[in-house]
């Protein structure tokens, strides 16, 4: 996409949203509010990806992170009695480690791309089609992502099995095992 006044405005809007929501996510005391702020932050990131013509990445950001991760975080808050109202005070150690971590990430970013052009859009980029992504993902050569893709699938599968095992393991204390399908809702 060509760099225009519009894209500049949008870039700064998204950046402001990301920074504002990110700050809110770590400072707000109510855990649910903080999850909602995180959602705003992720939306902003999706917007930046759109500006870079990475439609697929942007949509995956929304689908996986907002539609998946944040909803599960909110679900966990809802299921836990006191998380919404009981404020968890952060210790000084946590503050220090958090700031250090942020500084390290910033340094890494600067280190990786010190010559960044810092434009809001990437004019050379053509839109990624879904076929291209598909071919790339299933390409076994050095250019492809078949091995990472498979590794991630195995990882996710093992995570799912692990989660199921943990859930199963806690059950003997529970009383009714018959209708466990409904347990996910309760």
């Amino acid at each position: 996409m060509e760099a225009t006044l519009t894209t500049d405005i949008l870039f700064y809007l998204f950046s402001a949203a990301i920074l504002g929501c990110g700050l809110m996510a770590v400072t707000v005391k109510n855990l649910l509010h903080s999850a909602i702020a995180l959602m705003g932050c992720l939306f902003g990131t999706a917007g930046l990806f759109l500006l870079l013509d990475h439609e697929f990445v942007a949509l995956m950001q929304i689908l996986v992170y907002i539609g998946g991760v944040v909803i599960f975080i909110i679900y966990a808050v809802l299921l836990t009695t006191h998380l919404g109202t009981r404020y968890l005070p952060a210790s000084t150690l946590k503050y220090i480690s958090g700031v250090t971590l942020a500084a390290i990430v910033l340094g890494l970013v600067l280190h990786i791309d010190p010559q960044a052009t810092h434009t809001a859009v990437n004019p050379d980029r053509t839109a990624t089609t879904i076929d291209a992504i598909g071919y790339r993902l299933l390409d076994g050569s050095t250019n492809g992502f078949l091995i990472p893709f498979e590794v991630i699938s195995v990882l996710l599968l093992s995570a799912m099995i692990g989660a199921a095992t943990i859930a199963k393991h806690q059950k003997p204390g529970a009383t009714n095992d018959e209708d466990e399908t409904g347990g996910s809702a309760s």
Partner: protein
Amino acid sequence: MDTSTHQPVQQSVAERLDPHTATTPLGDWVRELCDAPDGGNLLSMTINVIIIIIAICAFSSLTAMVLVWMERKLAGRFQRRLGPTRTGPFGLLQTAADGLKLFLKEGFRPNASDPFTYYLAPLLPLTGAFMVLAVIPFGPSMWIADPELGLIFISAIAGLGVLALLIGSWGSNNKYSLMGGLRAGAQAISYEVSLILCFLLIVLASGETNLLNIVEGQQGNFWNWWIIKLPGAGFIAFIFFIITSTAELNRTPFDTTEAESELTGGFHTEYSGIAFSMFFLAEYVHMFIAAAIGATLFLGGYNAPFEFLPDGWWWLMAKSYAIIFLYIWFRWTFPRLRIDQLMALEWKFLLPLSLINLVFAGILIAMGWIL
């Protein structure tokens, strides 16, 4: 959030300008006004966006009004009643009167609720609905945005609908609401899997994620529609789509989220006035959207059933309203499933069968056994 929708608009409009789509009077006017054919400058974009927003708002409120009227009228006829008759001819203005009543009602917030989440929740469902409406191709030259990944966009946005229910139900500080919200979450996340598998089948068959291309791929007579073109698999996928979309819409027999006889209204127990009307409006806009997506994917969208008939938005409307009639018919016939049965239906029947159906369709396509 809205901007992310409009971003592809500009790009696609520029790409897709072919002779028969380019001559819309409104588009000409905007182009003349801005004197910039690329559509990339700020003024034309702003005007475009304003027109789009007005169009979507007008369309969705009109749709909701018509659908509420239709539901009440049909419900009446299903139940040996007349339905609304007093307000306007055939009770057509009943929805408007109801809407007016809701707008004038006191916005009431329980004292112990959480204001931020309580007020945020009613805004979200309509936002999602507007975003999805933007990508539905209503006619050969009638669409707002045409992103390359339209179907993925829809599934991404559709997953957000449940967010409002979760937040609102927690913010209401009511045990019934919370229970409804949790049910909604579990239900929506589960049924989304089957829904996306239905989408995937169409992607597999047409090789496209762009909605306009999917519709164009079904041109010709009605046996070119995916429901018939994929022998067996298309029809099964359509039935699964109807079931899962009914569940996603939280309509009977899957309305455990509201379940007025158990949860006294579920997630919107504590909402009143305009906040409630937002949920209500979004529910009916979502219903239209689901039907329109179903018509687009399986029933050829705006294509006419026979080649000699002209294509146009009226076909999409007719097909969508046929699906909506199904939803209404379900609602006024069936009792409600229990939440654990609902989950069992999804994970024990729909999901495995969808996967099998997908494999089946894959075999059909690979062998070239399509009509």
